[in-house]
């Protein structure tokens, strides 16, 4: 009897390994795996609505927390054979890595409605622009008015510098802790604010939207030292007038809160902070000026589609079709427009969408877009890890005492090292 029992017990252990969960779904299951944590509740609600209106499919949306490692998570998913039907790429680096998993969407209906689709190097449409995003040097219009600074005059480096000096002298009157709110901390996961976004002014500022000559030369290892030095001086200016604790240790919340609570007059962030500002009840007037690191006058903002939805080419044909239908629905219907603009507060990348976003910085972008003369984003074309791993520490060093000359040397060396020969 005991022998029988032990044999049975052993058999149960072994059988336990073999049980595979059975599934008998008739609907087409497909999934979205996305990174924008701030729009998670909205996209979940939109998916629910979509499922209600389309009984034949079942869409699930998974969001990875903010600041988390999306690329790493996606790699785990591919090794676990749980690749989502729709996932995100952030530029050519992501495309090169995932190209075997990226389906051609050239025939999809939404393509005709946008200028911001992602094209593969061989000219196929593969990426659905999730939103238009943009940044510049954000300002608090009310503080500037009290200080007697007209934001319309902040179009050159010396004008910005003079304004910083003036406001710095009136900090007590204006109730400010610092003039600018900038973050660069590795520990606070804020490296991207300067080494990615502000530095984009160096790649693309003062250039035609589609002129990539300067960036292309940079990638060949030819660094324009004069321009880089001018940029470094501008960056140093932003750093010098920042709250040093936020600059060196702060995280996203600390940086945005300083601006939202009117403790800083300027912020180096994009329109994605609108929802945070709303949450923090920042009801003052605000707007953007350009990152002016030269004496040439400029009002352009940095606007582009930073990320794209792509469809997994290795999903079943039914899933791929369901995914494209879903993207069409998002781009071309009123429900979709309502979700993108009214709910998620994004600046739509589609021409047929007539709704205007309510967020103050998003509306500033819509205005700038109508005005023209804006600049592209180039930082997404840097090799993987370069912005974060290589430039991030260099940009932090400038905040903790390294000189402008050393900064220029380090950045130059970094680009020479990755030069495409």
């Amino acid at each position, binding site marked *: 009897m005991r*022998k029988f029992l*032990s*044999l049975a*017990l*052993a*058999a149960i*252990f*072994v059988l*336990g*390994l073999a049980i595979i969960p059975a599934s008998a779904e008739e609907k087409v299951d497909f999934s979205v795996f996305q990174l924008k944590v701030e729009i998670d509740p909205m996209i979940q609600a939109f998916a629910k609505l979509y499922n209600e209106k389309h009984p034949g499919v079942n869409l699930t949306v998974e969001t990875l927390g903010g600041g988390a*490692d999306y*690329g*790493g998570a996606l*790699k785990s998913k*591919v090794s676990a054979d749980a690749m989502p039907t729709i996932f995100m790429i952030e530029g050519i*680096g992501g495309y090169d*890595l*995932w190209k*075997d*998993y990226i389906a051609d969407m050239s025939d999809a209906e939404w393509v005709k409605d946008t200028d911001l689709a992602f094209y593969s190097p061989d000219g196929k449409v593969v990426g659905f622009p999730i939103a238009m995003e943009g940044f510049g040097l954000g300002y608090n219009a009310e503080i500037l008015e009290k200080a007697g600074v007209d934001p319309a005059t902040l179009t050159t480096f010396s004008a910005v510098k003079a304004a910083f000096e003036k406001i710095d002298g009136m900090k007590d009157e204006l109730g400010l802790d610092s003039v600018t709110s900038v973050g660069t*901390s*590795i*520990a*606070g*996961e804020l490296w991207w604010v300067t080494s990615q976004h502000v530095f984009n002014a160096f790649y693309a500022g003062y250039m035609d939207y589609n002129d990539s000559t300067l960036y292309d030369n940079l990638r060949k290892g030819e660094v324009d030292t004069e321009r880089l030095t001018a940029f470094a001086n501008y960056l140093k200016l932003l750093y010098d007038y920042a709250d040093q*604790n936020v600059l*060196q*240790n*702060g995280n996203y919340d600390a940086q945005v809160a300083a601006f939202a609570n009117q403790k800083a007059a300027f912020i180096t962030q994009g329109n994605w902070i609108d929802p945070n500002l709303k949450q923090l009840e920042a009801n003052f007037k605000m707007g953007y000026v350009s990152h002016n690191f030269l004496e040439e006058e400029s009002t352009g903002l940095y606007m582009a589609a930073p990320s794209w939805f792509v469809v997994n080419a290795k999903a079943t044909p039914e899933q791929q079709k369901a995914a494209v239908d879903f993207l069409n629905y998002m781009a071309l219907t009123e429900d979709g427009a309502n979700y993108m603009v009214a709910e998620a507060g994004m600046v739509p990348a589609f021409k047929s969408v007539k709704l205007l976003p309510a967020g103050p910085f998003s509306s500033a972008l819509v205005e700038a877009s109508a005005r023209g003369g804006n600049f592209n984003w180039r930082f997404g074309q840097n*090799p*993987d*890890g*370069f912005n*974060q*791993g*290589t430039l*991030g*520490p*260099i940009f*932090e*060093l400038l905040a*903790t005492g*390294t000189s402008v000359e050393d900064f220029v040397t*380090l950045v130059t*060396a970094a680009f020479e090292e990755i030069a495409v020969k």
Partner: protein
Amino acid sequence: MKRRGIVDFLFIFPTAFAFLMVIIVPFFMGIYYAMTDWDGVKTVLNWVGFKNFTGMFSEPQFIYSFQITLLYTVINIVLVNIAGFLMSLLATSRVKGRNFYRAGFFVPNLIGGIVLGYIWQFMFNNVFVDMGKAMGLAAFQTSFIARKETVIWAMSVVNTWQYAGYIMMIYVASIQSIPDSVMEAANVDGANYITRVFKIMMPMMASAFTITIFLTLTNSFKQFDLNATLTNGGPAMLYMGKAVRASQLLAMDIYRTANQFNLMAPAQAKAVVFFVVLVVFSLVQVYLNKRREVEA
């Protein structure tokens, strides 16, 4: 008898199978991947030999991470064991409320490393800095984890705070297993408390030291969660003419190489080196400590 063999096999099978699939197979696959140009996604791999292994030793960040990990390990073996040992003496003494201390010292160990890292980050960046400003203490006005000279020590303090309680429990168990007669005999012979600790207790606890030093060595050498959440590798500093991260320990360097730079194969090569170094250190340590153990 034959029947018994089948039963034995079936009982061992689930564990052996799991061990084979999640440890042995990935281990050898890892060594293989380290010698290819694997990027984590592609399935057709090219053999590159030892290129990934030689490359890492010309990388300032890796060399720096290696050194700082050794330093961090030494600091932690010393700090955690001294703190754990002193706490165990307190928790086994006749002091009032010793059970309360025992529980209290152990509690930090129940907090997950991630949560702990964020809590201490807040303490270092906000609480200490604000305290420093309020009291006019210059040393506290810049965060300890934002300075390259202090960041490793700050991390060690947090790790000690968390881990010493666990090590203490091992010491407590060991102290309780020392026969009272031995301690009483020493007492009668006129040995005072300090002498008893050094001459009687510590030699009798040699096997506990083998375990605790092994645990603290591997724990601090493999440190990742605390590193990632408390400092994320920062602040930046200059090393060999390059900007490196001043508190990026080896495990984190491997993680970053793999997931940020997308250099999966070089990261895998680093992981193999990491494994070999850790095994060598642990074996040497266990061998040296074992020789000191006395038969009790």
